[in-house]
């Protein structure tokens, strides 16, 4: 008798446990996006319940320093908005947004037409900041900065230039003490917008690179070691004497990794600075396409840094969760106005005014009512 009761009790407890679990995960959380297009509105908004408004996003590591600063600052004045951003790489941001496992994505490599087509609904690219990708290196015994030309970088990444004292490098850097060390090439092992910017530039410069490697967030690298995220590549370069890699400027600055000057289209060697990156965007600002997808690598202008890029946050035009949508839109408006004040300290350049104006219009088109 006792055993039967006890077994019965066990079963009841078990059922209760399962029920609690279901309630815990159902209660206060956004219900899953309905099948089909996110335009089917209604039911989603009401049931957000007790959730502290946590909005999940994922994507590029390129802007992660400025985004994490923004989310943290914004939360101070808006404590009910918690934005959990995970830097898993631009490719990841695109993929998870398309699978709707996150509310927004972030990428430095704009989505292709094919990718936009396969998404369950129309997606907006919303530029946030301008950044630069710099060639970082770790050459023991070197004093002073190195200069690189586009073709040289392409050849290094194609594996054609193998040693630091190769003629191609010494030609650009007369007087620099370059050792006979092997060049250890570092690149991204994950799907990356930073990669996109880098290979976009190199493909414009070198037809061989374009042919052998191509332009995407994940490419078939001829040589090199893969690091995960901007952090991973910076880590590899920092710890491997003889290494060369490409990272967003702030990662080089924050970690005291030397980075080189790159020769731009006009022939000037420039390091990535606020001015040179802003100059790179100047030309594009006038002719910004409506969907904000534009490449500004290898820009014209003698002050333009050649490996600069916009970075975008991706939002569905018509998200199911209107409440989160409203919060995100409010955040974006803050980001492109007040948020731009934080960019300088972190090595990013603020958006040109004309772009901000266009973006405010676009934000108005997101259906959150």
């Amino acid at each position, binding site marked *: 008798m006792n055993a039967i009761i006890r077994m019965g009790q066990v079963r009841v407890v078990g059922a209760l446990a399962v029920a609690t679990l279901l309630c815990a995960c159902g209660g206060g959380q956004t219900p899953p996006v309905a099948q089909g297009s996110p335009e089917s509105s209604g039911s989603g908004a009401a049931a957000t319940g007790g*959730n502290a408004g946590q909005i999940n996003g994922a994507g590029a590591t390129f802007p992660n320093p400025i985004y994490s600063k923004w989310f943290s600052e914004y939360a101070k004045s808006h404590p009910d908005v918690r934005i959990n951003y995970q830097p898993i790489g631009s490719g990841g941001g695109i993929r998870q947004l398309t699978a709707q*496992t996150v509310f927004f994505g972030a990428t430095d490599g704009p989505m292709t037409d094919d990718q936009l087509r396969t998404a369950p609904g129309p997606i907006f690219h919303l530029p946030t900041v301008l950044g630069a990708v710099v060639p970082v290196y770790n050459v023991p015994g070197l004093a002073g900065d190195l200069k690189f030309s586009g073709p040289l970088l392409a050849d290094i990444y194609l594996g054609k230039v193998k040693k630091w004292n190769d003629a191609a490098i010494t030609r650009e850097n007369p007087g620099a003490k370059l050792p006979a060390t092997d060049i250890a090439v570092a690149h991204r092992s994950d799907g990356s917008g930073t990669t996109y910017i880098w290979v976009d530039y190199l493909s414009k410069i070198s037809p061989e690179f374009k042919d052998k490697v191509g332009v995407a967030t994940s490419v078939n690298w001829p040589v090199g070691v893969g690091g995960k995220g901007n952090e991973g590549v910076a880590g590899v370069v920092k710890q491997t004497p003889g290494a060369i890699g490409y990272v967003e400027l702030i990662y080089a600055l924050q970690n005291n990794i030397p980075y080189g000057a790159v020769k731009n289209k006009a022939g000037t060697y420039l390091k990535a600075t606020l001015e040179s990156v802003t100059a790179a965007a100047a030309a594009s600002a006038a002719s910004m396409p409506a969907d904000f997808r534009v490449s500004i690598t290898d820009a014209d202008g003698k002050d333009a840094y050649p490996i600069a890029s916009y970075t975008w946050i991706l939002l569905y035009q018509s998200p199911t969760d209107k409440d989160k949508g409203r919060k995100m839109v409010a955040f974006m408006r803050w980001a492109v106005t007040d948020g731009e004040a934080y960019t300088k300290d972190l090595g990013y350049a603020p958006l040109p005014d004309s772009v901000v104006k266009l973006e405010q219009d676009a934000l108005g088109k997101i259906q959150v009512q």
Partner: protein
Amino acid sequence: MTFLCALSVVIALVPLAFILFFVLRQGLPALNWAFFTEMPKPVGETGGGMANAIVGTGILIGLAALIAVPIGITCGVYITEFNTTRLAPAVRFAADILNGVPSIVIGVFAYAIAVLPFRRFSALAGGVALGVMMIPIIVRTTEELLALVPSSLREGALALGATRGRAVATVILPAALPGIVTGVLVALARVAGETAPLLFTAFNNRFFSTALGQPIGSLTVQIFTYAISPYEDWHRQAWAGATVLIAAVLAFSLLARAVTRRLERMHRG
């Protein structure tokens, strides 16, 4: 020859000593009150802690245990009680296969059944992934321990008129309990150290969160993120996290031994 064998013991233990030494040397200084109570700071700022990750790991292994223990024990009971049926060897084989599946594959599986259909990364999905990994360990432990229970106990219970289920629940399981508890603790220790399956199920969360339907941080994923970064401060925190993790695993193992000894004493007494 003896020397060679002794040498191999030394060779094996040297990395262990090395690892423990490094973890403690780097990690202990980085362990402070802030580490246990604060959240991660924005990228590039020093300080902050792993409070959310530590709690996250606790929640995840709790969920995993909740899923795996009932299933594992019941399955172990079936295999032992009905081992003459055709199902039993099939189940045993299945548990063996499950034991050998690489954790990354379990992560892919959990992504497909617990993340995609619900359109969200969640602690629950992470718990499912870890739970699936725990099941075979518990099944095997239960099976082995139930087999060790003397047949006299079982026959006695049945002779007194108990049904099979009652005999198992009231007599045999309690007799095997110390070992099963050990098995559960060992499985928990194993699963607390897993990273790969959490990468695409629990994802990660920089905020303190206990909601089961939201992404959740975990000690292992946080250590991984910090380790591959270039920030010195993050490296220090990664070592600190590793110290906490090893301490937890050690604690579980020692707890398992202590529990076994105490329950055995209880039974004998």
